[in-house]
């Protein structure tokens, strides 16, 4: 398993209560857990993935996710079993919708 960690500067507080969990850890799929975490407005992301060597792509996907939603003081934890960026983005946006993100309907 490869563990990756990312931090982003957020500005938007989630509109709904947490924790929120979407997805299932099946082949080509992932689960995304979003919890409150007071951290100076940051959005911390921790990824545990069975697919090695895709750190740069995770960074790009998460950066774009953060540009869409910009959550602050949220911790996102991911268990991934080889999902493509398409599925990762979809799950992240599904989680964002549950968090009542205005950016979810961008």
């Amino acid at each position, binding site marked *: *398993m490869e563990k990756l960690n990312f931090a982003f500067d957020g500005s938007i507080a989630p509109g709904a209560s947490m924790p929120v969990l979407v997805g299932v850890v099946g082949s080509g799929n992932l689960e995304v857990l979003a919890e409150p975490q007071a951290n100076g407005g940051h959005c911390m992301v921790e990824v545990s993935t069975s697919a090695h060597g895709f750190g740069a792509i995770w960074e790009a996907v998460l950066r774009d996710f953060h540009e869409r939603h910009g959550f602050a003081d949220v911790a996102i934890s991911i268990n991934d079993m080889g999902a493509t960026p398409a599925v990762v983005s979809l799950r992240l946006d599904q989680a964002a919708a549950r968090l009542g993100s205005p950016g979810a309907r961008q």
Partner: protein
Amino acid sequence: MKYSFAESTARERVEHLVDAGSFSEILGPVERLVSPHLAQLDTPCSFDDGIVIGRASLQGRRVLVAAQEGGFIGGGVGEVHGAKLVGLLRLGLADRPAAVLVLADSGGVRLHEANAGLIAVSEVMRALLDLRDAGIPVLMLIGGATGCFGGMGLVARCADHVVMSDVARLSMSGPEVIESAQGVEEFDSRDRALVWRTTGGRHRFLSGDCDALVEDDIAAFREAASAALAARRPLTLETLEREHALLAARLDRFGDCADALDIWARLGIADAARVVDLDVAALRDIARID
């Protein structure tokens, strides 16, 4: 809107099965009670170890609910997963809910954690029977794509009441295992019509191993579960002996049948081959083994 039970995740099933907003999760993903064994095997974990447990209400009555996630390692029972299920069942003795609902979606013991899983399954059976003994009904709701196999299949038949959809399957040995052990002539696991004829909801209903047959619809499961809240089968020597007699009679009457089609024909069903195409509602009207 119709929610397919089979296509929903465990969490979605619980959400739409119980009274809206009534579910309160116990030992949820935030607790991160993950499997210690999977990490050692470099296999992905799930925050809830593939099972959702908690309290809820059904038609205003208090219930406990456990739902296995068939999409995570085939719903296999591992150490933590099993402990959560055992814990929930034992909680029932203290909580005394109207019923405990188990949404089984599992291939049985999680092979990655074989010993722990096996122990857990036996503890589940013990806890389930304790609940029944205490007069609290246990309802098995089986409707996932994985089915209810192995140790969970045995657990299912220990319960008071079994509800299955017609796409669901309930058995002990899985199709591939039967084929490996008995040979492909005896059982071709790739013949999916055969697999469903042998282990599917329709056959289980007609042969008496399942109490209620429903459409693949969470609302239908909710309705069947609500109706079964009063369905208790007291755990007495008498009921056990009656069950044994029933099984012996069944074996006597159908033991020489080679295929479910033969059993259905012998049950007196006019066009046995059409059973698989009938609507669930139509099937309910057919005489079954009592």
